[in-house]
């Protein structure tokens, strides 16, 4: 199995073509096995503890605009993943235009999200500090607005999304769009590296998206998913999972 695919460039020299898509299967299988293991493990460990009730007072967690951002990002990432890998796994769809348009949507939403988070939101609530690392190992420590896992997932996604965006836009500059024509490629090796990075980030994103979706669907976390739809969590849920001292309602 290869990790990187190579090809001969116009001069007959070997250059990088991109990531090896064999890894797609590796990622898919590994992610599946890990999550299945986790599910089994969790099921076995299940303390049959009652889940906090969703009834009662509602605590605002996400503004409508942020929820919209999230779902647009989610939608575009899913579209991007699907359109990106469809040709690789042999599904015939006219993918490219949908892909880069979704890519641009994702890029814009990410930019807005970043600006909003920096200037209008409690940016610090998502910062991951050394203290956060104690959290998973000490049951007594409860997080503020975002748990350690959530912050971890967020930052991993951030890195990967920034990577696909940066590399994706570079690739976009190399194809015909309504605004520009394809340029000549002077150095095919460099282009290959962009493809490699885009592909590698894709693999990472697929893995983390799978994990993200898995947790979003897990019973004990599902209320977060609801909060991303409806905007609130219940006071019970809040108390059970968060330290209200650390999470200052805005």
């Amino acid at each position: 199995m290869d990790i990187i695919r190579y090809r001969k460039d116009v001069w007959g020299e070997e250059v990088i073509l991109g990531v090896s898509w064999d890894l797609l299967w590796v990622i898919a299988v590994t992610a599946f096995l890990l999550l299945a293991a986790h599910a089994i493990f969790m099921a076995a460990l299940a303390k049959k503890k009652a889940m906090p009730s969703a009834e009662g007072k509602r605590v605002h967690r996400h503004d409508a605009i942020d929820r919209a951002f999230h779902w647009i990002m989610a939608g575009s990432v899913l579209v991007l993943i699907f359109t990106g890998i469809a040709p690789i796994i042999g599904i015939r769809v006219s993918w490219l235009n949908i892909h880069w348009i979704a890519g641009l949507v994702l890029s814009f939403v990410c930019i807005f999200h970043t600006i909003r988070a920096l200037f209008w939101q409690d940016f610090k609530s998502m910062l991951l500090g050394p203290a956060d690392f104690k959290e998973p190992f000490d049951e007594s420590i409860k997080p503020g607005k975002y748990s350690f896992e959530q912050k971890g997932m967020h930052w991993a996604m951030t890195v990967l999304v920034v990577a696909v965006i940066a590399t994706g836009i570079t690739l976009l500059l190399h194809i015909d769009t309504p605004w520009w024509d394809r340029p000549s490629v002077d150095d095919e090796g460099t282009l290959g590296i962009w493809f490699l990075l885009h592909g590698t980030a894709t693999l990472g994103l697929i893995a983390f998206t799978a994990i993200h979706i898995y947790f979003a669907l897990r019973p004990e976390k599902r209320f977060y998913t609801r909060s991303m739809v409806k905007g609130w969590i219940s006071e019970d849920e809040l108390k059970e999972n968060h330290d209200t001292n650390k999470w200052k309602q805005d």
Partner: protein
Amino acid sequence: MTYMHIGKDFTPPDVEAKVTGAARYAEDFKKDGMVFARLLTSPIPAGRVVSIDASAALAMPGVLGIFTADDLPEAKPPANPALAKEWVTYIGQPILAVAAESDFLAEEALSKIVVEYQRRPFVVDPLDTLVEGGPDPYPMGNTLIRNSGEAAAGTTASGTDVGRIKWSIDQVTAFRNGREPMGAEFGSEWEYGDLAAQFAACSTVIEEPFVTIGQPHHSLESRTGMAYWENGKCYFHGSLQSHTVGHNALAGMLEMDPANLVFINENTGGGFGSKIFPYPVMAVTGRFARALNRPVQLRITRDEEFYIGSARSGMQGWIKIGLKENGRVGAVDVAIINDAGSGGGGSGSSSAEHISIMFQPEAMRFRGLSLYTNTTPRGAQRGPGQNEMAAVLAPMMDKAANLAGLDRVAFRRTNAPRMDGKIGERQGGISSSYMPEAIDKAAEMFNWQQKIAQPKQISATKVRGIGVGQGFHTAGANGYDGLIRIAPDGTIYLHTGVGNLGTYSYAAVVRAAAEALQCNWDNCVVVHGNSDLNLPHSTYQGGSNTIFTETRSSHVAALDIIEKMKEIAMAEFGGSTADYSIGEERVFLTSDSSKGMSYGEAAQKAIEMGGKYSGMEYPENINATTQRSVQAMAGTGLIGVAKDLLPRSGAVPGMAIAFVEIELDKETGKFEILDYSAVAECGTVVHPQGLSQAMNGGGVWGFGMAQSERHVYDPQNGLPANVGLYQSKPPTYLDVPLNMNTVGMDMPDPQSPVGARGIGEPAQGCAVAALMSAFSDALDGHLFNRTPVTADMIVNHVAQNGFNTGNLKTNTF
């Protein structure tokens, strides 16, 4: 004059084998123990070879060795190296050869050889290297300069270096836009007459840019060769247009005594100028065979033939033409940049020569520059220079004539060379010219007056175009040797060192000897194609010169043998040679024809008499090649041998004029040739079928040059697009008219004993010119200023969508 053989059709001896497929070409020869060599070529347009690792290939069982530039004398740029190392200058350039027990193995071995290259900047369009700051095709520059150096042993080019000429952006821009590049530097220049004064005296002046693209030779028989060494002799089966004239050069390439070289080349599947003389890769074949001590066949594939098989040089130019009130061309000023590819050169001066002879301008200036590019090497191709110029000039001359209100044909006739015609820089004379008469004859054949009176519009979408064009090439040399042997059985062996490139001229020329000998053609044997068969030193087969040059040498050899027969008869029957005549293959006393002997008897006597009669002695002035042949035949019959010292002065013009009528479909850019009529002004017609073949073949090629043949390079990567024959687009049977009306003027040239001049090249020039003129006529005088004019260009022009193929770009369409 009534001739026995001259002007009569005959069946050349090789026709049957050609038709049945029995004819053998270099690649058909196999030899016991023969190994197969194949080339590894450059994937990059410019750079150098850093290292070669052939260990994996050499480790394969059955792989016998490799041969690299290190095994050859160093060829200094711009000499075209057989194998490149320091100066890799085009994609497809040979780097090394590998030999193996089978062709398949050789190919496998190639894939195991790793060559490391260092890349350099490259350029595929001459104007891109010409502009200051533009990349150079060689690290040392972009053009050829002369020095006084000698060629290295085993290499050909001498006295040349690569230098650099650059123009300012303004000069290049002006040139691209069809203006004179003021103050620009050129590589060569000539001028006659008072240009400024003549232009001042002109009432019509036009100024035009032009571009013609290259065309690969794509010889159908690729330049595969096979060589082996036996008892110190090298036997070489090769593919050349010429034969003996290349012998010494080939021996030189192999650094051997020419006496030990046996060059065998009975048939040649096309050369078109690319195989006139031995070409670099032959050195690899011969030397590799010597190194391995095995017979080696170095096979050249179809795409390799594209890369190393040469191509016509493209031109980018500017011209200013002035016409006087009286219809004479007063002055012409022309500047030409030639694309010399990675080696070889352009023929700008020959292009200018075309103008100078066809229109006899009273003053003229030529400035030329031949620039290298990282594209395939260029070389002579049928009418190099002249024919490209004929193509772009015809519509421009039409424009000038139309502006001046002159009939296009009358205008050409007014300016056509007469007996006192002058040519080129030195305004030297010509051997003869019946061009005005030829124009009249062709116009009459074509019905010019009636044709131009026809309506232009044929149907809603089809228009008529009527064109006229001229072709020219100097078509004669002299000073070669003739050699004849008559055997005691009376068989007349007509030896010729002329190559058999498919024109049958090798057989046609020796008929001048048969004519002089007044002998039956059935008793003649044409001896050619193998230097072991004792061939004389004959002219090169290029420049349309063979007919003129070699009828002369055949003639002088015949005169020599006749004189010797008379002397032999005189020894028997007394008197003086003047008292003797020949006839019916006998030499006899004019006064008493019973006193004489047959040619065979004379040959028998010659053997007995020895000395010069049987070739024991021979004139000192004959070439060493001829001397060796005479020595080898000495004592086997009566030998006639002589060097052509017949009087000769001025240029020998081969000329042709053609008319074409087309029906052009303005919606598709496609056209049909309704009529093609051409007259060859080539002196006496020696072989009518040969002439019509030359005129038809040239015509077909001219049509191809006008409409489709191409040399295309991607400028971004230096990649050629027309490596395949089909991609180069020679015309097909369905692209040319079924009938082409061609005849010869049949007026004798005084400098040929049989009155003949050559015609090969002008046959193409007149056709391409006439067709270009017809395109322009069909489109109301629109000038494309380029060849070829393809359907897309016509469609773009008609649609007026503002697109054409780019101003003055070569290597493209």
